[in-house]
């Protein structure tokens, strides 16, 4: 004879201390089961046990479902797999003796409250940030999108973690084909567990490029909503405060959460600065090395004399010297990230002042090389999400520049640009609106026009409604 769902569940959780069973008679014998550690005791008592105590003549468990008038989250469980999923998520299951089962929402709310995200601080603008709870995160989006067009698709990923994933979009703006594509990709994921949204980001990167970030990440609901209003899709993963946004453009890296709350002229200036500093931070060490090694004639004479005086006693070649500076800088940055903030400040001081100064005083490194390395390092932090990849890139370009001179710098830069230009996910070219050139989208790329003048949604991102106020 087949085991009942209740028996199967009991077998699965045999020996677990937090497996709780209450037998109640409502005209027919019922069993209410829950995981104590995942459920809120008050909810179990108020939404399950108390109502059941008042029901007298139920014929099946579904009669009970229609008679429980308290609590909103009550649903019929279609199969045993769904029963286990609900049970592990904190629902209380009520079984009858005929394999009928309903699930009542008794999930406990544990987790941090909504605070300003530490990675996206702004001078002006909303300070709310996403948290680890998917339900709270959807609430944060719904608070800002009070429209029935805000749609969600709920999925579960991970064989063991059964992580809730929610795909959010605005119906009538986002292109349905892209939403379906994303849903299908998430649905097809075969993985043991999803511990953070970054796990999904790797699966949503169509070409599995890994080198450059191909999926947008934000910790701020206002940014997520802003992107959804442009036709993008947001993916919320339970247990992660980082919400993914797709499709993603390279130019989004240059944009900051506070950009839309400032004067557009100031925003343009900041973005241009970020853009220039990133290019300079990648190319500056390489140019310094190849100019010093091969094409020193390019450097103005007085400047050249200063550089030569500062580096004549250095026992390393310009390339080795610069690589040393860059690697030490990367090590310091890595150590700083993993240190408690109080110790981190001391580490920065030791690294920047003591180590740098000592190396120059000892004649191991030249002051210009340290200065160029530091300047380049600071530039990298204007795009904090891409510091690692940009750092790797500058090491490679410096190495090639040191070995081949200006030709090497030109070839390696061209190689990176061709690579970036070839990338296209979800019908969105990565380098849009510059390559391909989409003139309409230059209004909010590196330069930005004022918000009232932005009457159209971006053409780079596929959407079904181009008019922002239509």
């Amino acid at each position, binding site marked *: 004879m087949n085991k009942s769902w209740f028996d199967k569940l009991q077998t699965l959780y045999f020996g677990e201390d937090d497996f709780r069973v209450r037998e109640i008679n409502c005209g027919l014998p019922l069993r209410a089961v829950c995981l104590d550690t995942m459920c809120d005791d008050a909810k179990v008592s108020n939404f399950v046990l108390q109502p059941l105590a008042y029901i007298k003549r139920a014929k099946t468990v579904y009669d009970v479902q229609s008679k429980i008038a308290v609590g909103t989250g009550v649903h019929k469980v279609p199969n045993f797999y769904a029963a286990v999923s609900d049970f592990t998520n904190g629902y209380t299951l009520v079984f009858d003796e005929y394999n009928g089962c309903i699930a009542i929402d008794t999930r406990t709310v544990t987790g941090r409250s909504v605070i300003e995200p530490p990675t996206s601080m702004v001078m002006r603008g909303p300070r709310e940030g996403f948290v680890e709870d998917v339900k709270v995160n959807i609430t944060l989006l719904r608070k800002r999108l009070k429209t029935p067009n805000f749609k969600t698709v709920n999925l579960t990923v991970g064989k063991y973690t059964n992580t809730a994933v929610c795909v959010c979009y605005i119906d009538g703006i986002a292109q349905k084909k892209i939403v379906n594509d994303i849903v299908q990709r998430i649905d097809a994921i075969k993985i043991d567990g999803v511990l953070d949204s970054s796990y999904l980001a790797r699966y949503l990167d169509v070409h599995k490029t890994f080198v450059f970030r191909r999926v947008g990440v934000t910790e701020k609901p206002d940014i997520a909503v802003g992107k959804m209003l442009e036709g993008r899709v947001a993916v919320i993963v339970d247990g992660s405060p980082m919400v993914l946004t797709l499709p993603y453009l390279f130019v989004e890296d240059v944009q900051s959460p506070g950009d839309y709350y400032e004067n557009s002229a100031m925003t343009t200036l900041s973005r241009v600065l970020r853009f220039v500093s990133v290019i300079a931070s990648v190319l500056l060490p390489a140019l310094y090395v190849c100019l010093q090694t091969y094409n020193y004639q*390019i450097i103005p004479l007085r400047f050249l004399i200063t550089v030569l005086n500062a580096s004549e006693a250095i026992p390393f070649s310009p390339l080795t010297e610069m690589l040393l500076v860059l690697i030490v800088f990367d090590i310091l940055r890595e150590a700083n990230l993993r240190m408690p903030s109080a110790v981190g400040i001391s580490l920065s001081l030791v690294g920047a002042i003591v180590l740098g100064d000592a190396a120059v005083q000892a004649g191991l490194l030249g002051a210009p090389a340290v200065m160029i390395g530091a300047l380049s390092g600071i530039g990298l932090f204007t795009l904090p999400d891409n510091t690692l990849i940009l750092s790797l890139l500058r090491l490679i370009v410096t190495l090639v520049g040191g070995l081949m001179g200006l030709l090497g710098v030109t070839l390696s830069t061209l190689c990176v640009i061709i690579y970036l*230009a070839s990338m296209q996910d979800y019908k969105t070219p990565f*380098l849009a609106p510059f390559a391909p*050139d989409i003139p309409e989208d230059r209004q909010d790329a590196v330069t930005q026009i004022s918000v009232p003048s932005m009457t159209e949604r971006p053409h780079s991102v596929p959407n079904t409604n181009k008019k922002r106020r239509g």
Partner: protein
Amino acid sequence: MDKNRVSADQLALMYFLLIAGGKFLTLPSILAGDVGHDSWLVLCFSFLWDGICLAFLLWAIKINVNARLDIADILNNSVSRPVGIALFAIFFVIFVLRADILLSSCFKMFSVTFDVSTNWIVFALPFAALAFFAIGRGFNAIARTSQLLFGLIALSVVALLVSPLTQTDFAELLPIGQAGWGTIVKTSFTRSFWFSDYIFIYFVLDGIKVKKHLYLPVFTAFFAGAALTVLLNAVFVALFGHLAPNFDLAMSKIGIFSVASTANGRWDWLTLSVWLISVIIKIIVYIFCAYKCIEKIFGANFVKINWFAAAFVTATLAVPLFVNTDGLLNTVIKWGLIPFAVVQYALPLLMPLFTRTAIDKTEARYE
């Protein structure tokens, strides 16, 4: 995503870079050697033929917009497959030779101008690697790269030209036509190997996306590129006069005029490096087209990149290691002028007819 799809704008910008990319290296001194200060007239005539052929080629593109037949479909259905194979073989030789000669000029540029002497293999290998990589990423990526870098390259050319332009005495170009008009026209034919940069368009015929305009952007690019080339050549011969044939690399010599003194540093070298990107893009485009020729010759449509074919094509960049490029160029001009003229000048004129015939045949087959 169609990796070989390009818009009319991208096509135009790329065409401009291809015109400006290779003609400021050794060509001005070669032409100055041939016809003296009338070399700019040779360029005018060459661009005149190019403009006529380009108009016909664009007409063929217009006819082909909806049918999206590739060059192999068109030639196979109009002039038969054996003739098509012969034409692709000629194309292959042209592309490989042009890439090799450009690379050889780049090598000279780096060793002479930048004082960076290295051996050919070390120099050519990164170019080959980049071309190999670009073949894998598709023509669309190359077109987008051109679009992205167009402004920077155009700016570098202007920066290199502004200073010498102010010091040029254009009276040095008088009397006009001193070399004789017959000689000028003849030279424009004998040096035709350096022109007809539009031939890369044959290999993206099926991927050109025409939304509004085609003639306007392409011809604007053509006229801008042609005007810039003629101007630079005129400046070069006017500045250096009888010495012009002795200066192998026009751009590097002209660049000297853009710097005031050593105290300011040779900033023109940086702009020269930026301009060199257009030469590199030109090499990449030619290598890509050579790869496409192999695809068409073998009647294959490589859905995925055929790495053997790509490796073979990029390996042809090593030819100057074994052959003297100047000697090669002379041999080419001696033996290849007529076959090359067939694909450079005769084929574009016939392309609208061939395209119409091919479309009719294909449609008839489906009916």
